[in-house]
């Protein structure tokens, strides 16, 4: 039976983890590779790096991080943030990423998703969707960290990028992100039920029950969280044990 995935996400800026925590035995909490190794050892199902480096010149630091992680962690790695061109995807894949997530560039130029999927295969093209609630049952996509509205409906957009070849959707509720109040379950369910590709729920995880809800009520097949793992509130292992106890199929080995 296919297991539901738990994906810790690391925000990386200029090659350093932005919100690090002092793990036991971790010498450098700001080192993304060291943190990735901790998550690997705890049984994370995949890893996600979100690059928030502002300047293009410092992008090379990200490639070093991806390279270093791929040499030590033999698990799927998704990298997103600032991916604008086919060449960016190629560089990330060559550095060792398995999947690349596209956000703003897909909205600016929707055909980019189809180009990328054709070039590299749908299996490595993730489209990240940042959505905000407009009214019950209606969500709009925002870009630029939630500052810029697009007028695009989130569910329509998910269907469109899937038709273009996206192999997975990384869905973040801008309303919930950072609140620790739990996923926007109505949003997650609306998108997950509208597309045939896997949906990763993101934004708002504060408790382990939220992870269970994302799967059972949101119909996501993967859950992503940053801060509860970064700050050492819960370990991946605890999260998986909790989900298993709640009847969610997870991998424990």
């Amino acid at each position, binding site marked *: *039976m*296919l*297991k*539901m*995935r738990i994906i810790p996400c690391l925000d990386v800026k200029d090659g350093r983890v932005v919100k690090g925590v002092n793990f036991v035995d971790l010498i450098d909490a700001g080192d993304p590779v060291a943190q990735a190794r901790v998550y*690997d050892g705890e049984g994370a*199902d995949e890893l996600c790096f979100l690059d928030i480096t502002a300047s293009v010149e410092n992008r090379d630091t990200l490639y070093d991080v991806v*390279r270093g992680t*791929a*040499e030590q962690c*033999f*698990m*799927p790695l998704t990298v997103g943030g600032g991916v604008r061109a086919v060449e960016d995807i190629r560089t990330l*894949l*060559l*550095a*060792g*990423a*398995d999947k690349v997530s596209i956000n703003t560039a897909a909205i600016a130029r929707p055909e980019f998703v189809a180009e990328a999927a054709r070039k*590299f*295969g*749908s*299996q*490595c093209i993730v489209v990240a969707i940042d959505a905000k609630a407009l009214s019950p049952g209606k969500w709009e996509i925002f870009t630029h960290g939630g500052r810029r509205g697009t007028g695009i409906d989130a569910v329509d957009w998910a269907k469109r990028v899937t038709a273009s070849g996206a*192999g*997975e959707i990384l869905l973040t509720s801008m309303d919930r992100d950072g609140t620790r109040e739990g996923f926007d379950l109505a949003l997650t369910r609306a998108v*997950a*039920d*509208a*597309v*045939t*590709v*896997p949906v990763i729920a993101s934004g708002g995880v504060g408790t382990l029950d939220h992870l269970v809800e994302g799967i059972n009520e949101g*119909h996501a*097949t*993967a859950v992503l969280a940053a801060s509860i793992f970064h700050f050492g509130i819960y370990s991946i292992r605890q999260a998986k044990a909790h989900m298993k106890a709640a009847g969610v199929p997870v*991998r424990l*080995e």
Partner: protein
Amino acid sequence: MTVVIVDYGSGNLRSAAKAFERAAADTATAIVVSADPKALKAASHIVLPGQGAFADCKRGLEGVAGMTEALEGAVIGEGKPFLGICVGMQLMAKTGHEHGDHQGLGWIDAKVTAIDAPAGADPASFKIPHMGWNDLEVRDPSHPLFAGIGTGRHVYFVHSYRILCERPGDVIAEVDYGGPLVAAVGRDNMVGTQFHPDKSQATGLRLIANFLDWRP
């Protein structure tokens, strides 16, 4: 020992090579990523990776002059141990039916077709690709590739197409996703895995080590 990972422009081979280096850490094994058919002459073991569409991979392989012939010579002719991964495994089939009908290498009597949702399943709840960790059902526990890897171990899959074998004896392991799918095939000196051993943490590294130890 020299392991040649065949580079024909399909995806990132760096992390695959790293996984082989890790699995081979205790032995004097060279891991070579090469697009040169002549490299297969010196190979003790051959790995054919692959990601994306069947036809693109086949075209990529044919785009490397002499590579298909070199593979035939080394694997069929000389009987060198061979491991196909994901689409690299699917290419072992006679035909692939992704975006049209295409010829494979024809080493395994099999065809590659789309994964179908089980009858009556809600299409939105049956996700394609089959993506994530799934537990193996090992059909041939005596196969050296699966030494120490029993039924129930999890490995990482990502695929929308599956291989259908004509001979049940060629199926080494299966996985359940809306019904049984082939997880590993093989005969004689060749094996193929639908999953990615290089992305499957400890279980994957064990399988790679088993492959490196294999003397069919």
